[in-house]
């Protein structure tokens, strides 16, 4: 990223190391200077302004921060940004193509698979990984496949229906 100028309020502390990384986020190459301790979730949210990835619990339990790293689901609150150097990251913002929703997004809306919406991006990314591996899942497959993601509002029944809805649409596409 280039800018005409950058103003520092204080001279940066001399002992803070940084590393330059290149990450392909939703297909776009992003080159950013980061502290090694910066978590992927915060990198996405704060550096790249992709705020669809939420942080819920800090301990890899709730799954709100689920993104795909080289196609596999990871909880971005326990991955360092520097670990993603040279790799592909997909977030909820990369699900829809321009104005066209992904079938998973359609399914969640159609089957009332969300209420407050906070867990939804992570839920949908986990669903994407699940359907990539198993395009024709049973209810049980979905319940097991999404057991790394917590939802406090829906009671999951409609989330399961949403994923079944999406699976059917994707199979017919």
């Amino acid at each position: 990223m280039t800018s005409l100028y950058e103003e520092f309020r204080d001279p940066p502390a001399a002992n803070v190391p940084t590393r330059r990384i290149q990450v392909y986020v939703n297909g776009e190459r992003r080159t950013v200077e980061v502290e090694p301790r910066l978590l992927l979730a915060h990198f996405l949210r704060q550096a790249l302004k992709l705020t669809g990835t939420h942080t819920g619990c800090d301990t890899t339990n709730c799954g709100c921060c689920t993104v795909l790293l080289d196609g596999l689901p990871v909880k971005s609150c326990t991955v360092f940004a520097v670990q993603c150097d040279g790799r592909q990251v997909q977030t909820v913002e990369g699900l829809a193509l321009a104005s066209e929703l992904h079938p998973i997004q359609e399914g969640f809306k159609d089957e009332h698979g969300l209420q407050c919406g906070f867990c939804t991006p992570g839920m949908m990314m986990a669903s994407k990984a699940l359907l990539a591996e198993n395009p024709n899942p049973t209810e049980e497959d979905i319940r097991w496949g999404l057991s790394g993601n917590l939802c406090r509002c829906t009671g999951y029944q409609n989330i399961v229906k949403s994923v079944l809805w999406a699976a059917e649409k994707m199979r017919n596409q």
Partner: protein
Amino acid sequence: MTALDEIKIGGIGASRLRVEDDRFIRGKGGYIDDVVLPGMLHMEILRSPLAHARIVSIDVSKAWQIPGVRQVLTGEMMETRNLAWMPTLSYDTQAVLATDKVRFQGQEVCCVIADDPYIARDGCDAITVEYEPLPPIVNPYQAMEPDAPIIRDDKLGQVDNLCMTWEVGDKEGTDRQFAKADVISKLHLHYPRSHPSPIECCGSVADFNRSTSKLTVYMTTQAPHIIRAAVALVAELPEHMIRIISPDIGGGFGNKVPVYPGYVCSILASILCEAPVKWIEDKTGNLISTGFGRDIYLDGEVAMRKDGKILGVRMYTTSDHGGFFSDAQPSKFKIGLMHSAFACYDIPNTYMGARGYYTNKAPGGVAYRCSFRVTEAMFFQERMIQAAADDVGVDQAEFRRMNFVKDDDFPYRTAWGFLTDSGQYGKCLDVGLKAIGYDDFQVQKAEAKKRGRILGLGISTMTEPLGAGNSREYDILGIKMFDSAELRVHMTGKAILRTGARTQGQGHETTWAQIVTHELGIPAEDILVEEGDTDTAPFGMGTYASRSTPVAGAAVAMASRKVKAKARKLAAHLLEVSEEDVEWELGRFYVRSSPDRGVTIQECAMAAYSNMPDGMEPGLENISYYDPPNLTWPFACYICTVEIDPDTGVWDVLHFVGVDDCGVRINPMIVEGQIMGGLTEAYAMANMQFITFDAEGNCVGSNYMDYLLPTAWETPGWELHEVCTPCPHHPIGAKGIGECAAVGGPAAFVNAVMDALKDYGIRNIDMPVLPDRVWEAITYGHDIDGSPPVKTDAE
């Protein structure tokens, strides 16, 4: 001219897809952590590692040495601004930042404000606090010991740990009923401490603008107007210069009602730093310091005739309020609406005595998916009902039916003084029994027993009071509990609606529009719903205690009716007839004698801005402040069958049936979503979700590795049924529903397990009904009391 189809245009009864989903499924929701303002700083909180300790010294000098640290707040600094303490929702005080001592693990001690949250956290780590440990108190029975250390030594005249006492009912009348009873059934129960735990934690972005003196605070709050009033009073800022914005909220469940120290500190930090300051709580901070739910013990007694007719009920509650009495509840009631227990049963006399104690645990006592302790009330009620049915030897379904308030008894005044107004309790029970296959199951259970399998069936039936006010009886800190809606119909017939409520997943943006559609015939998609900004929304009490539809939803209907009354005058003018000759059908006024001659609501709207009659004010908008005449009383019947593995104590739900009567359903899809969510929380509380403390006052359940929430894998499937008895006083006949399942659900699960274990001589296992507790009960043939793992002599 064919009449409009209300369902097609998204009116009442339409399972309209939610409009808010469009942004959420794209990752474009705007939650608190998504708010970014220019020059914004970040605040982190340093919390006490000890439950009870005197603060000897605080050294913040090393924090100041970290580049990027902009401000450090301590209790001493707060004290100089008279902000070290703040009022609670129950007329007590709560420390903002500790000055004298810490009273629970996780209490706020210092705040560090820095350029980014990582540096702010570094700053917290660099602070040294020296504590002198004091003996901690972790339950009310320890708190009432005569030599117990006094937790609230800051309060003048406080000589013990008693925080409140309260009684309600007819003691002597109840005593007389007990004296003539054939059977008295007794039960000691504990409803363990739980945490609402929305996935999104609390947070705020405070922005004080010195040049305009205006304070804007983005805040995770379910009640923005109450917060505005509280900030005006606590921070002594003029109310008109305070703007509270509640952005998209990632779940509330009662946790986001109170004012927390983090909010107050972020405001002061913004004033001191002259920059916006963001505070985002981490999960541990949320679980160990913010509003908990429940944590209450019961000694309950039911007096009966030998045929099973209930004559009287006594309830004695002992509650644990933590370090500060900050229960969120109407001020008249000290243990919430606990006395709404047994409202669905016809009982001549009842009495309740309540006492609450301070302990070295987090404060809160919030209405966790609940109308002020009704969750505890209905759980105790249904556990007592099951034990009473067993004790008197009457079938549990029949016992309920014979004691129910009957359909033609309404309006019915309960012995504790509530007025229930409608319901078909017997019918709901019938629907539930049929769906679960009650008689077949008894046969199945007996068969299974022969093969060493243990099955059980549990019932929970209840009506609960939802939708506080009325304002005569319900207020919070003196502010009456009404709510509001403001409807503005634009020239082209599109509209904007604002209410004093605040959605947190309930779907107000979708359902409020449906009420307007029902009243005015404006298609729901033409109505924008906005909430949560105190500068634009009318004053309201917010969303909690299932009060939005009963109160704000009623206000939406009433504001629409006021708009319609003016539209009628416009229609008469346009149709050149007198107002009396104008008739209404959905979306259209017409001339009574000539139905083809009519004008649509949209045409009336245009006329309001372009062709109003002489002497009429222009515009088509109105506002309603709705003070409900009574609470609404939904009824629910939840029935559950379980199988227990005697070797492991694991119990599985075989079948769950829910029958809800919440009156008219505005959006059936959303109502069912609310019920399924509530049932899952009920299952969680019965099965795994609890917070407890070790003897040192360390919180067990301070993160999602210890505080277990059910996932899709263990959550059972839900079978839902509907009965509809419209609320007689609500403008559209609706009743509250958001919490019914969480309130009535837990007892269904626990009753099912207890039904299964009846043959083992087990009468009670307190929640959470963990497998090891079930195994212990089966193996040793005794009850399991209290909350794991801390047990006291009193338990």
